[in-house]
């Protein structure tokens, strides 16, 4: 399969008063046609920024795309003409925004906002667009009678579903879904995820799914990339990463999930706070919090290595190359989950 | 003005009336600065009103441009005795409604005028109006009145059609007179249109349509002249004279008016009651500068009399006050104010008053008098000054006869609202005024008026400063227009082209 979307070395910064926030630091990512990629990471890791960069919607000021390339269908979106970009947006690549409440225009009815994108890209009549929009509403579990209602009359989850309906309406080639189901109950969430799965099966739609819900990733995605401080620290297929998480951050992440079967009363978060994105550590970004960190971790940036024995499992960590591997770390990796 | 001139070489076809080339241009558009309040001559006498009314109505007698009495509706008159005058009316004069003017109409009109509070102050002296026959009417005054004929030239003495006035409740909406133009229409706030009266006794005017257009801003009137939108424009600003004169398409006419501007002192005020103080003030004023500053030079020295040169008994400069600051200061010191004093100057809120007040303030400052200017709207001004709340005030007065001028200014009869705002009372003057009015000997009257002028020139309760010029600008093909000192102008006689 061809790479439909290829991000190379993307660097994005936010320039605020006297400070530079390094939101995305040389990130590279591929997305193949018909593939679902989960993008998981700590808050503030730069997931939203990455997604916004693809469509060049990063607010400027203060955001600046400092470097990198984003190839879609062989074209570098960062260098292409405005008009081409417009024909891509909403049509070939659509985005589900993280904050659905503020992403809807308060003065237009929700139905209109869905119909608008349909009418724009499908070149159809008003009535047809409306019909299709109503269909989309029903598809995300909102009675079509509520077409004429305004965002402020909708609940949080309903707004989120409107945003979803809007972005899948034109059957895009890629959906960038930024935490699309945070406000949805599990039944509707399942329904929405199924909708996306259908698209994937029927139209080979690719999905970049940003989420914190590892359960959702496990259910929906083919691959997962773990992001930390603006970099991908680990990526691989679901079984590869879920069964044998290798990066200390990923391991910590899995350790903090509450499960239905869990009996303990205390969750175990990863110690410490994320590094200050205005002053990233000299070495590995995770090193200040890493229980396995050694001297070199604090001074040098680790590169990306493929984990031996696994097809696509890549890691940004020194640990695997250590001559004297860390016992406990190896233990955790091998034991898997 | 050059720019106006170059543009003028363009065909005047830009004017809405178009037809510049056609010889038979018979529509005349006159720009007036203020809209009339009425077209009924018997309601109120304002300049806005009589500029229009004059054209619709004729009067028994008329003043020509040199202020000589000429017969109009009255072909001739006999002075029967000191109080009675008999008028022989012109025969066959038609009103606009087709009726013939008779003595009844004259009687009716004058009585109508006397009954109207707004205009009757000049005519209350008339005690009887008797119709002798159809074409003869007799006017009797309660006291001898040598200036009666002059007063009958005023618009308030216009002859209206009795039949028309009695048959309508709103004569103002449909006035009927026997003047050269008849009323056609009046858009409130907009144009007033008159049409030539074909049966006018002296012959129909070649101007068939006469439009009065209100253009308040003087610069706009000038521009309207330049663009050809209007044919005649009254009261141009002195700053525009050069422009108009330089424009080959335009011409100007100017004349001195009967309007005198003066600064008055409230003699009831303890300080201003002193003659020396008032004289000191007179010495402080450089009248030439004052005229330049206030009127842009568009006026002439009043020669220390309220009378204008046209009036009987005009006696200029009986006493003169040279511009002499030192003398002024000395007089002040003599009066007990070596360091000056401060006082108020009441003026109305129009530009000319404002300019004048600043000039006066500056003049008086030189001799140590600090003037506080109080400008106010007309309503407040008239009421405040008639109550004597002021110290100094600046005002003007127009008159066409010596009695009404001097009586209003200096007589006890007219204290306060009626005109005497200086509250200056000298019984002697009152006596002389009455005597002059009563006498049929004009030389005697002249002499009396001169005496009065001499007294007030010495006392200076008010100091006449300037006699205003009247001006009008017109297209150069407008001919026959005469400017009258009395501010009323007859359009009749005007024609376009040769």
């Amino acid at each position, binding site marked *: 399969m061809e790479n439909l979307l290829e991000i190379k070395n993307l660097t994005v910064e936010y320039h605020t*008063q006297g400070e530079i926030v390094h939101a995305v630091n040389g990130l590279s990512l591929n997305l193949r046609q018909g593939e679902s990629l989960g993008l998981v990471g700590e808050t503030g890791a730069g997931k939203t920024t990455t997604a916004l960069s693809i469509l060049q919607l990063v607010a400027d000021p203060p955001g600046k795309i400092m470097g990198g390339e984003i190839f879609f269908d062989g074209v570098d979106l960062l260098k292409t003409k405005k008009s081409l970009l417009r024909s891509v947006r909403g049509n070939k690549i659509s985005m589900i925004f993280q904050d659905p409440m503020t992403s809807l225009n308060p003065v237009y009815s929700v139905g209109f906002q869905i119909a608008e994108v349909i009418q724009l890209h499908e070149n159809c009549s008003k009535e047809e667009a409306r019909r299709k929009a109503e269909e989309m509403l029903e598809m995300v579990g909102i009675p079509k009678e509520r077409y004429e209602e305004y965002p402020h009359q909708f609940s949080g989850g309903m707004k989120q579903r409107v945003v979803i309906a809007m972005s899948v309406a034109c059957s895009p080639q890629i959906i960038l879904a930024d935490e699309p189901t945070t406000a949805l109950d599990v039944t509707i969430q399942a329904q929405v995820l199924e909708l996306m799965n259908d698209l994937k099966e029927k139209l080979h739609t690719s999905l970049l799914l940003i989420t914190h819900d590892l359960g959702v990733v496990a259910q929906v995605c083919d691959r997962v990339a773990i992001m930390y401080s603006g970099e991908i620290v680990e990526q691989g297929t679901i079984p590869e990463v879920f069964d044998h998480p290798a990066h200390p951050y990923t391991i910590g992440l899995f350790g903090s999930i509450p499960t239905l079967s869990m009996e303990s009363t205390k969750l175990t978060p990863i110690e410490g706070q994320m590094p200050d994105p205005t002053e990233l550590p000299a070495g590995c970004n995770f090193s200040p919090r890493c229980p396995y960190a050694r001297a070199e971790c604090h001074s040098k940036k680790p590169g990306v290595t493929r984990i031996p024995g696994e097809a696509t499992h890549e890691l940004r960590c020194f640990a695997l190359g250590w001559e004297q591997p860390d016992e406990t770390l190896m233990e955790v990796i091998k034991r898997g989950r | 003005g050059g720019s106006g001139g170059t543009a003028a070489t363009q065909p005047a076809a830009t004017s809405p009336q178009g037809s510049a080339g056609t010889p038979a241009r018979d529509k005349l558009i006159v720009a007036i600065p203020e809209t009339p309040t009425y077209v009924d001559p018997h309601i109120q006498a304002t300049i806005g009103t009589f500029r229009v009314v004059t054209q619709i109505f004729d009067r028994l007698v008329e003043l020509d441009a040199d202020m000589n009495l000429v017969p109009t509706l009255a072909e001739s008159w006999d002075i029967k005795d000191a109080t009675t005058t008999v008028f022989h009316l012109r025969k066959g004069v038609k009103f606009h409604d087709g009726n013939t003017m008779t003595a009844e109409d004259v009687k009716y009109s004058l009585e109508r005028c006397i009954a109207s509070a707004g205009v009757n102050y000049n005519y209350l002296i008339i005690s009887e109006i008797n119709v002798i026959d159809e074409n003869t009417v007799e006017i009797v005054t309660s006291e001898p009145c040598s200036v009666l004929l002059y007063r009958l030239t005023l618009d308030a003495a216009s002859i209206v059609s009795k039949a028309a006035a009695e048959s309508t409740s709103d004569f103002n909406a449909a006035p009927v007179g026997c003047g050269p133009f008849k009323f056609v229409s009046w858009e409130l706030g907009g144009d007033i249109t008159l049409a030539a009266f074909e049966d006018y006794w002296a012959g129909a005017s070649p101007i068939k349509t006469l439009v009065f257009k209100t253009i308040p801003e003087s610069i706009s009137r000038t521009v309207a002249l330049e663009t050809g939108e209007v044919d005649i424009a009254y009261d141009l600003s002195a700053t525009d004279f050069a422009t108009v004169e330089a424009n080959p398409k335009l011409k100007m006419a100017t004349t001195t008016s009967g309007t005198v501007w003066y600064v008055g002192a409230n003699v009831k005020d303890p300080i201003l009651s002193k003659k020396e103080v008032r004289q000191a003030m007179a010495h402080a004023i450089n009248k030439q500068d004052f005229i330049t500053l206030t009127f842009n030079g568009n006026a002439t020295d009043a020669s220390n009399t309220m009378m204008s040169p046209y009036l009987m008994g005009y006696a200029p400069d009986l006493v003169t006050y040279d511009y002499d600051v030192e003398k002024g200061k000395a007089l002040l010191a003599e009066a007990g104010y070596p360091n000056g004093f401060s006082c108020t100057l009441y003026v109305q*809120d129009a530009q000319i008053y404002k300019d004048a007040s600043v000039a006066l303030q500056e003049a008086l400052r030189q001799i140590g008098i600090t003037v506080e200017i109080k400008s106010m709207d007309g309503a407040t001004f008239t009421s405040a000054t008639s109550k004597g709340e002021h110290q100094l005030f600046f005002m003007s007065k127009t008159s066409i006869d010596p009695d009404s001028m001097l009586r209003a200014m200096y007589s006890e009869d007219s204290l306060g609202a009626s005109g005497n705002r200086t509250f200056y009372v000298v019984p002697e003057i009152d006596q002389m005024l009455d005597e002059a009015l009563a006498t049929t000997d004009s030389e005697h009257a002249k002499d009396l008026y001169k005496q009065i002028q001499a007294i007030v020139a010495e006392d200076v309760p008010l100091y006449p400063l300037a006699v205003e010029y009247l001006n009008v600008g017109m297209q150069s093909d407008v001919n026959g227009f005469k400017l009258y000192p009395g501010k009323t102008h007859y359009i009749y006689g005007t024609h376009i082209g040769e």
Partner: protein
Amino acid sequence: MNFMTTITTTTIVKRRKKKSQFVMVWERLKQNRLAVAGLVILSVIVLAAIFANLLFDYEAMAVRQNASIRLNPPSSEHWLGTDEVGRDILARIVFGARISLPVAFATILIAAVIGGLLGAIAGYGSRTADNIIMRIMDMFLAIPSTLLAIAIVATLGSSIRNLLIAIAVSNIPPFARIIRSSVITIRNEEFIEAAQAIGANDRRIIFKHILPNAMAPMIVQATMCIAGSVLSIASLSFLGLGIQPPTPEWGSMLSNGRQYIRVAWWVCTFPGIAIMLTILSLNLLGDGLRDALDPKLKN
């Protein structure tokens, strides 16, 4: 009560110096070149007004008439020429700033504060309050400002202070309406609910939450109003209300000079430019302030 006793916390990292809101706004303003230009122009005008006495002899240059030099064009002696009674226009402009500027600022301040407050209450408060306030505003909008000025001067006497009140009062209703219009949209925002939820009272909500978000139209309205108020001083002093001649004042200079526009353009052009520069600088400053106050633009 303190959580810290029970919860282990990460060590507090080095404290960045906390800047006050004012300092931050100022710093942002400083980066805006146009705003700085506005500030400079305004300062020059204000300083000139303050030190007018040192620059010109009031009596000799700004008041004394001199028929021999009337309507002189700009020259080395009279930089901006002389007016119709031979006074130095530059001097009059400089002294005129002493009237025009304070009146303009004070009226705007009063109008903005009272109007802003009324508008905010109307927009945020109950329907009844809204109706009462806005209907009273309708009434005041309908009463011509000259009439209002006449009334105020008639009851309180004629003085610059009362003139100022008159102008301020007639500027209140537009402010109220503008602010109300912003408030009725902002009051629907969820952060207002959030403020209610933490127990903020109406006053706090209006001042801390609503008005800062309604600043933009307010600033525009204020800067726009300044022009109006400088010019309305002129028309009111024409009616004899307030500033009396020969006190120099921009609005009257401008309107007195208009009849000379064809023969001596400088008489009304320069006061006009003075007014324009003032408004221009205030607008530049206002725009800069608007941007500096908008955290989304900080940059």
